[in-house]
């Protein structure tokens, strides 16, 4: 037992260290962004977090996947309470340490865990079928290359295996409770796993002990492995959906963020204010991830790659290159590439590449209608449009690279105060036209 205990503590500590390092790297990447995460109006923020992240409010716009996802989510949250017992047992070398303390409550809890385990198992199986057999469109679009697809399938399969491990462990345990009750405290009858008991009927007690241990180790190692894995995966949303909904901007949806420097400059130009303070104004708009706001970067890590945004995007629906999900995925990929470069002693941000140009193309940026369907659709309050508009600002103001038709439109507004080439003196002509007017 002692060997197992020492091994367990070492693995636990190592996992903790790796996860901590990853978390630090991700936090550093997010801090590359501009401005602070906003914390004003905490009440509203808390409400958003509770309703949207915890309550999954926006998921329920599509009820079927929402219900299945809800099982996986609740199952995951609740079964993790059992992990607490795993960890205490693992360190102390005990077996089901909570059973004697919780008395009659223990079997109730265990049965709830098992029910959820079965629900998770079934949901994950259906999800796998939906993705791979029914081939739901949004899981097969262009940005869903080999890795994102594998990522999703890996997690679903891992969840299924972990749940099977729990049920196996409980089934073996219930036999052991019958055969050596002095070592295995009674857990009461567990509805689902007791159905598996006949499978282990023939096994010797020694084999049962091994089976129970193997399932126990498989489950806990799986969970610890999962903790490391998610930091590289879209499954990070199970953690970051919470801060992302909390820090999501509360400004009106239709308001683009103001660039103060420009306001000052324009006011000075029109003789309405003091001349702007000298000093480099920095870059207008965004060329690379460090020009984006921190909330955009946090969002990129919180993105679930569910593709609900892309599914509703008019540009994507009609075959344009733009996909709002890809905007978020590219932003995360760029940050991760920077991390990897730095870890190898490379140049990081200054590697000669940039988010706009090497990851996101002009064609994608130019295709957006700013319709906000993506913003409305996202279940974790991500705003892909913000990144698109930041890049447009870079293109128009730093590169003067807007499409020719837009440059003509700019010129018309500048000279005629209208986006078309009509003289401003004609602006009131509508009143005198039309036979039935006046």
């Amino acid at each position: 037992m002692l060997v197992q205990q020492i091994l367990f503590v070492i693995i636990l500590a190592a996992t903790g260290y790796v996860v901590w390092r990853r978390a630090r790297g991700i936090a550093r990447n997010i801090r590359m962004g501009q401005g602070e995460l906003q914390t004003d109006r905490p009440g509203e923020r808390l409400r958003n977090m509770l309703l949207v992240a915890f309550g999954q409010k926006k998921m329920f716009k599509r009820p079927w996947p929402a219900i299945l996802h809800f099982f996986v989510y609740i199952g995951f949250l609740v079964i993790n309470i059992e992990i607490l017992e795993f960890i205490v047992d693992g360190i102390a070398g005990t077996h089901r340490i909570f059973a004697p303390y919780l008395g009659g409550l223990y079997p109730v809890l265990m049965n709830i865990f098992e029910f959820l385990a079965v629900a998770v198992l079934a949901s994950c199986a259906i999800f796998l079928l939906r993705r791979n057999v029914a081939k739901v469109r949004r899981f097969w679009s262009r940005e869903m290359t080999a890795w994102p697809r594998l990522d999703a399938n890996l997690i679903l399969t891992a969840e299924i295996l972990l749940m099977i491990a729990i049920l196996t462990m409980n089934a073996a345990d219930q036999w052991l409770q019958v055969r050596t009750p002095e070592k295995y405290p009674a857990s009461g009858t567990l509805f689902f796993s007791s159905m598996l008991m006949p499978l282990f009927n023939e096994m010797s007690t020694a084999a049962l002990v091994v089976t129970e241990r193997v399932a126990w180790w498989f489950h806990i190692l799986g969970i610890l492995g999962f903790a490391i894995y998610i930091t590289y995966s879209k499954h990070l949303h199970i953690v970051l959906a919470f801060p992302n909904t909390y820090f999501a901007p509360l400004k009106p949806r239709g308001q683009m963020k103001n660039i103060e420097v420009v306001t000052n400059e324009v006011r000075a130009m029109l003789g309405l204010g003091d001349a702007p303070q000298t000093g480099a104004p920095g870059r207008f708009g965004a060329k690379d991830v460090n020009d984006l706001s921190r909330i955009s970067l946090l969002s990129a890590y919180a993105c679930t790659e569910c593709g609900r945004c892309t599914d509703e995007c008019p540009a994507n629906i009609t075959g344009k290159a733009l996909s709002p999900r890809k905007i978020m995925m590219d932003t995360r990929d760029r940050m991760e590439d920077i991390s990897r470069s730095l870890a190898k002693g490379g140049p990081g941000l200054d590697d000669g590449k940039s988010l706009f140009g090497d990851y996101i193309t002009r064609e994608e940026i130019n295709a957006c209608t700013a319709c906000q369907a993506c913003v409305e659709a996202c279940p974790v309050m991500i705003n892909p449009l913000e990144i698109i508009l930041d890049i447009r600002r870079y293109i128009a103001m730093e590169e003067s690279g807007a499409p020719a038709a837009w440059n003509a439109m700019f010129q018309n507004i500048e000279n005629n105060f209208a986006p078309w080439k009509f003289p401003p003196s004609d602006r009131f002509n509508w009143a005198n036209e039309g036979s039935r007017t006046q």
Partner: protein
Amino acid sequence: MAELAAQGRSPEVLFWVGCAGSFDDRSKRVTRAFVKILQSLKIDFAVLGTEEACTGDPARRAGNEFLFQVQAINNIQVLNGYNIKRMVTTCPHCFNTIKNEYPQLGGNYAVEHHSTFLQRLIDEGRIVLKEGGTFKGRRITYHDSCYLGRVNGVYEAPRAVLAALDADLVEMKRSRAKGLCCGAGGAQMFKEPEPGKKDINVERTDEALNTNADTIAVACPFCMTMMRDGVKAREKESEVAVKDIAELIAERQGL
């Protein structure tokens, strides 16, 4: 507006016409229809006339923040100069910019889109539409404008206005929060679409045509252009009309 100001008067409400409403031939008809409604109800309103200028929305959404701010700050100077408090506009983009973006630059006005304005006039009984009438048996489908609906949450007012017409209202599959864009937003109105399989306005028009409506109702000058182009592309101009909600009210009232 300048004339009123010269007389030392200020109107109850300023009608912000918008560039499309001022220059686009089709949208000018919407402007005139709305004005007729206002005049028939003896509402005390004014327009800026040649003093109005683009709100800057297309420039901002195309990335030109500098040009947007020049437009916005100039407009705010004019509006504040006339001490304007209340505004109404037939353009959701102007509405959004004035409502959500001008306050940051010192322009604070109670601005309304004409859909909520008309709805209130109907609710207050100032616009009276008699039972039956010419719209009985007509089928109307309403196309949500992104900047009115999804962005500013106005879904019901235009529908309430249409419901008062006593026609059959039919919904498209994608409506309200899920309404599909007409394809003009984000300054797309002012350039050719990027390469793709289909034009967005045609995709949306097909959806509207599938409802078998004889009228596609819109509440935005850009949606108007896009949907009309879509109907033309499908060669249905003789069967299906694209109308602004203000035009439909004016028509029903025989104005």
